């Protein structure tokens, strides 16, 4: 009966559509999805689709990849956005001088080779590849690189990730509004320039390989003003260029025919925004998208039906309980140790996360140099935890306030249970992102959840901005250990990676095994789901890149 009713309803709806179709708002220049959609179920439809696609493309099969993800909503200018989702799109269009491959190895992109570094580690000399063009036709020159960095340090730009670059000489003066030019940036000719740092800083070479240092064409970027990163106002040297972008439903990228890195595999990538995970996966099943990230909460549901299409990967991050070391009870190391002992991390990962993670052995992610592979998973010993609390004078139980975001709610509900067992009552308060952000910055949150990711495998990235004494205040942590700071300071200036790893190993030990300044929980696993005809797709860290991916057109036509 219900089916009949629905059929009647839809019939009525069809007539209603027909009546008012002429005034339907459609999105910008987005092509009609029915001509390119993936997998029609009926044979008749399938023929039609292939024919339509063939007609569109002068005989040859166009390779179109449709990728579904949520909309970051603050544009594609990676000086302003810090979202990995925005970076997934932006990095196909704009490029940094160097970048990390999906195996997390650094390679030159816009440079002929890695820059040479002076003995004292202060002067970096760069040589740009010649004949690289932005997709608007302008040639990439040293002046564009200078412009990009100066734009980043101009206060009006509102760039968010200046912390990774402000060791460039003169950057702080620009940020303070005392200068309008970057004194540490010198142009020799169109293809040669040098960057001078205020102090030797080993990870600088890696920082300029992140999306935050994507190089923009001076003229076009200036002309776009604060519209840069919105609509089609983002131009780079990358393998793809924006064909259309309505900022709210879809971004369509097409192949850059003159890409300096050689032939590009795909003709088109459509980034389709889905804010609802369930809807995204239904769209995937329907063939509207070929590839999507798969949230852990939906993993078990799709593992059964689409197990072969799911691939797990491990971002360079750590999920941990972030503590305010000035807060009541938390300031007592015995309480922090007791919290750690109360948690069964293996069980947490197996049950709450459906196995999507690796139980933590220390703070530093297990793929980052310096991580001590010999360490066991943190001990689970509730009896010992109770004893510690009793010795510290909290035998009657204590109540600690926690404020978390919705993403951490499930894990923290489980933690609440573990802590209850040892006499710690975790008073859990779930708030929205904006409330959490300002409360945390203000140091008002004693206990919260956090996953801190590194954009490349380096201990500095994962530890310095969160736990270094000078920085941990802004994170609401207030960690201050001179030995830890010393390790990080030393590692920053060294160029010998083996020695650096040793220092990070020691820093990690101080932070997470001696001081218990945070309670590491697990190294997260993420996963994506892809149709069988999506080839060579791999994700090495946080950001989804589409440099090597290809589509098996024959297999797609058959599916």
């Amino acid at each position, binding site marked *: 009966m219900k*089916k009949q*009713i*629905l059929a009647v*309803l*839809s019939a009525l*709806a*069809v007539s*209603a*559509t027909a*009546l*008012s179709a002429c005034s*339907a*708002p*459609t*999105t910008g220049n987005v092509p*009609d*999805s*029915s001509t390119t959609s993936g997998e*029609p*179920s*009926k044979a008749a*439809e399938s023929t039609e689709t292939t024919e339509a696609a063939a007609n569109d493309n002068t005989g040859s099969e166009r390779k179109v990849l449709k990728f579904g993800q949520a909309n970051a*909503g*603050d*544009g594609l200018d990676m000086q302003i956005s*810090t979202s990995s989702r925005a970076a997934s799109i932006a990095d196909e269009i704009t490029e940094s001088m160097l970048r990390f491959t999906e195996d997390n190895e650094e390679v030159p992109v816009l440079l002929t080779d890695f820059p040479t570094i002076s003995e004292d580690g202060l002067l970096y000399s760069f040589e740009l590849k010649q004949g690289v063009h932005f997709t608007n036709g302008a040639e990439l020159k040293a002046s564009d690189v200078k412009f990009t960095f100066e734009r980043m340090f101009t206060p009006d730009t*509102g760039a*968010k*990730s*200046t*912390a990774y670059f402000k060791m460039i000489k003169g950057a702080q003066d620009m940020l303070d509004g005392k200068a309008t030019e970057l004194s540490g940036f010198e142009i020799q000719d169109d293809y040669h320039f040098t960057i001078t740092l205020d102090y030797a800083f080993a990870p600088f070479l890696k920082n300029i390989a992140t999306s935050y240092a994507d190089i923009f064409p001076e003229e076009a970027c200036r002309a776009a003003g*604060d519209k840069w990163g*919105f609509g089609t106002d983002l131009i780079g040297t990358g393998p793809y260029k924006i064909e259309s972008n309505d*900022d*709210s*439903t879809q971004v369509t990228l097409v192949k850059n025919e003159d890409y300096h890195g050689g032939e590009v595999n795909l003709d088109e990538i459509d980034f*389709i*925004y*889905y*804010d*609802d995970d*369930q*809807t995204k996966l*239904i*769209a995937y*099943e*329907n063939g*509207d998208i070929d590839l999507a990230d798969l949230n852990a909460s939906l993993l078990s549901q799709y593992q059964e039906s689409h197990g072969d299409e799911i691939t797990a990967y491990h971002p360079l991050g750590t999920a941990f309980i972030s503590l305010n070391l000035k807060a009541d009870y938390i300031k007592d190391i015995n309480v922090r140790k007791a919290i750690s002992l109360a948690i069964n991390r293996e069980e947490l990962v197996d049950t709450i996360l459906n196995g999507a993670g690796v139980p933590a052995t220390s703070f530093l992610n297990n793929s980052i140099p310096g991580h001590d592979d010999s360490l066991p998973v943190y001990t689970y010993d509730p009896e010992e935890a109770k004893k510690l609390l009793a010795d510290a004078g909290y035998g009657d139980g204590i109540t600690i306030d926690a404020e978390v975001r919705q993403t951490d709610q499930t894990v923290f509900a489980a933690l609440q249970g573990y802590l209850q067992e040892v006499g710690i009552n975790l008073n859990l308060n779930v*708030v*929205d*992102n*904006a*409330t959490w*952000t*300002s409360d945390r*910055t*203000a140091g008002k949150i004693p206990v919260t959840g956090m996953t801190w990711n590194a954009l490349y495998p380096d201990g500095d990235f994962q530890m310095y*901005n969160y736990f270094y004494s000078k920085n941990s*205040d*802004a994170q609401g942590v207030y960690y201050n250990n001179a030995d830890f700071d010393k390790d990080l300071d030393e590692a920053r200036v060294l160029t010998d990676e083996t020695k650096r790893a040793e220092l990070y190993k020691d820093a990690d030990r101080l932070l997470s095994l001696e001081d218990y300044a945070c309670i590491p929980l697990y190294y997260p696993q993420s996963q994506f789901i892809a149709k069988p005809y999506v080839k060579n797709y791999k994700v090495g860290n946080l950001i989804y890149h589409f440099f090597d991916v290809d589509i098996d057109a024959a297999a797609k036509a058959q599916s």
Partner: protein
Amino acid sequence: MWRYVLKRALLAVSIIFSISLITFLILNVLPGDPVAMMLGEFADANKIKEVRHNMGLDLPLWQQYLQWITNLVKGDFGSSYFQKKPVLFLILQAFQYTSYLAAMAYIIALIIGLFMGIIAAVNHGSWLDRFLMSISVLGISAPSFWVAILLQIYIGLRFKIFPVSGVQTSIGYVLPAIALGTRYAASISRVTRASMMEVMGQDFIRTAYAKGLNPFRIVMVHIFRNALIPVITIIGADIGSLLTGSMITENVFNIPGIGKLLIDAINRRDIPLVQGGVIYVAAVCVLIYFIVDVLYAVVNPNIRLGDK
């Protein structure tokens, strides 16, 4: 009549003004700082203070409100903090989607609701009446996201006629319109039935039947027309709520309408966009009720007579 309309119009304007004041105050006592959101994870307290100062967010509240309301009267809604576009532009863009969805959903709701209501009233007490009214209870109680997901899975995925999400083509509106329209259809059918039953019990209807008039004519002209007043009220309220966006349906079907725009803005504390959006919602509701009030007066002279 004109005095009545003028009085209603003045009331409407003062309601919008009060709402603007209340929204402004609420947004300013809400926890969460847009500046902290804008600056990202490396912002320290000093930087936040500096940016707040530059944006004029450290001025006394009354001064900020005055500034905002003056601009508003001039037609300047300000710009979104995060999307860097004029608020009015964003609202009008989202309104296109919402209004189209609302129109389709309501056409569906009206056709089904009125039809069901009339059939049920004419056959009141019969199995058909009971059946239709139980369906309407189901329609009112079913949460729209649930109906939405059922439609996506059982209609969209299975038959591949309607897209499961997205409104790149107008056919994409069909499933969301049904999901959204169901509840309205259900309430329209119940109100239509109840008010028709009331009219049916009155003397003039019995007289009409006794005179041997065509029963279809009696139902459609004498009963239905007289039963319309409560229906118009509910239509007014429904259209108001439809035009101000349905967050859940828009989210599930990926439609960038008003509901989605506002929720995103609230989550980020995009204050100019939230304020502009609330003013928009208030204006639409007030306008609809104003039209309903005037329509009342047109349909039922007693109302405007009582006003004199």
